[in-house]
């Protein structure tokens, strides 16, 4: 890798520029073609361009912002989890985010007592409360990272069994649930993004503030304690941040998999493992990746769309695989 790109400020600047470029493409391109004049007219809300204003402000901008928040939030969550558990394979699902959100949503759909508009609320609280249950169980035992993972596996298994059971009872519920579980940004509205945006922003800021201490957790409990970190408290804090940001994303984007696992992994390969440096880079890279995947999903078979979750897996999977192979080569050469 080029020496200058290893500098954090240069890498952040480069990624920020790429993100701005991707945002411009994402608001400009879509199933409805826009000339430059129409684009500017719509963007500046000029008379005569109401249709374009509507498309830009009601459809494309919320979607772009949603993609940025989803990418940044899930990547932040994955980075925190991988650092805190010392496990490169950790993602938001290991602390029950997906299972918790999924169970809450299917329960809501099954009971049918409130409208589907409550789905985001159910998803957020389902994910967050499940994580808290897992952490509470783990802390009651011994609070070690292995216990967190094992408690996550146990709780997730029970909730997944509940999801399967409820989906067997009502096929209509299963159809709606499948849509949620694939994950997508098609119907995202601006007002849906305010609370998740605040949560993700606050989690990112807190992670930056405590970055140096969270970074030390990657050394394991004994060394982190020797370096003056209150290991149990700091791990719990980092896991709550990870849970809150992932739950916030699930509330508007559904169960968008893969991002939280892959993005921190790729960034660590490129820029090393120092947590404080990785934070902004991972958030930016995640935002670019999800935004690009969503754009590709919109354009490839327009006017039909492929959900961003599927595109992410199709593009990210082989890319991740090639990275793993290169990593093996690097180790073989040592």
């Amino acid at each position, binding site marked *: 890798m080029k020496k200058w790109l290893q500098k954090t400020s240069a890498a952040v600047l480069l990624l920020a520029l790429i993100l701005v470029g991707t945002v411009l493409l994402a608001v400009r391109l879509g199933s409805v073609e826009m000339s430059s004049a129409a684009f500017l007219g719509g963007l500046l809300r000029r008379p005569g361009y109401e249709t374009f204003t509507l498309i830009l402000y009601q459809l494309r901008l919320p979607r772009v912002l949603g993609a940025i928040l989803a990418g940044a939030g899930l990547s932040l969550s994955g980075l925190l989890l991988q650092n805190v558990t010392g496990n490169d394979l950790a993602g938001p699902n290991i602390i029950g985010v997906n299972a918790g959100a999924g169970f809450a949503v299917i329960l809501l759909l099954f009971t049918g007592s409130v409208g589907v508009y409550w789905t985001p609320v159910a998803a957020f609280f389902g994910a967050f409360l499940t994580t808290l249950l897992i952490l509470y169980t783990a802390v009651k035992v011994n609070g070690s990272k292995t216990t967190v993972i094992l408690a996550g596996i146990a709780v997730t298994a029970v909730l997944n069994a509940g999801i399967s059971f409820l989906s067997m009872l009502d096929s209509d519920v299963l159809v709606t649930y499948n849509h949620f579980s694939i994950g997508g940004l098609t119907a995202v509205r601006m007002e849906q993004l305010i609370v998740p945006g605040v949560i993700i922003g606050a989690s990112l800021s807190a992670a930056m503030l405590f970055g*140096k201490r969270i970074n*030390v957790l*990657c*050394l394991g409990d*004994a060394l982190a*304690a*020797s370096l003056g*970190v209150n290991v149990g408290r700091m791990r719990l804090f980092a896991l709550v941040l990870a849970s809150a940001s992932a739950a916030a994303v699930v509330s508007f984007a559904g169960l968008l998999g893969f991002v939280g696992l892959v993005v921190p992994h790729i960034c660590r390969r490129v820029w*090393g493992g120092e947590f404080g440096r990785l934070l902004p880079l991972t958030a930016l890279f995640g935002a670019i990746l999800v935004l690009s995947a969503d754009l590709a999903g919109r354009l490839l078979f327009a006017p039909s769309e492929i959900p961003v979750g599927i595109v992410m897996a199709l593009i990210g999977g082989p890319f991740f695989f090639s990275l793993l192979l290169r990593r093996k080569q690097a180790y073989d050469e040592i």
Partner: protein
Amino acid sequence: MMRFDRVSVELGDKQILDQISFSLQPHKITALLGRNGCGKSTLLSCLTGTKKYTGEILLDDRNLALMTPRERAARVAVLPQVLPKVPLTVRELVSLGRNPYLDLGRHLTEADREQIDRALSWTGLEQLADKRVEVLSGGERQKAYLAMVLAQNTGIIVLDEPTTYLDMGAAADFAQLLVTLKTRHKKTILIVMHDLTGAVEFSDNLVVIRDGRIAFAGCASACVESGIIESVFGVRKGTCCKDGRECVLFYR
């Protein structure tokens, strides 16, 4: 001065450590000896607060358990046996040693960087500073972690089997480094060792643990004379001539 006063640890219904009492002499090397599973590493875990214990560990007559984690970390550095392969460069790892001195949001100062450079220089790792820890050999990794502990700049350094991955020459260099840290930099060192001959040669004092209890605590020569080492480890004692002076060695 650090003093262990009737430190006991129970795991379930098993007594791992039973009434351990001894003192670390300032600016001296004390080797902690004992057979596998006798409780040496458990005793070190008590120092970082990761293991619950009864009794007291006193540092200049202040109870270690009552200090904040950062206060404790600024005075005692503990390097455990298992050293993870982390995706950090050697310099980044060593800089973590400054963590006890960094307030929230505070960045490394020039003084911190000087301390980090010094630690890299003492361990001879300047050339490897930009290499990732995960690709280092076992011995290099051990040195990198030692440099991190040195960057922590504490009066007391506690090392759990730090020469496991070092070849004979590197282990001798390492022992020499410890002697330098003791004499020139006035560090107090507690080191868990399995190399009995090396422990007797480089340590001022020995603490021998047998089945969770103190079998001996005192100066190395008195320990050698007492025959405790032969009894605890089932070894025989011999002598050899090294650089014109007589040295004790243990063998089976």
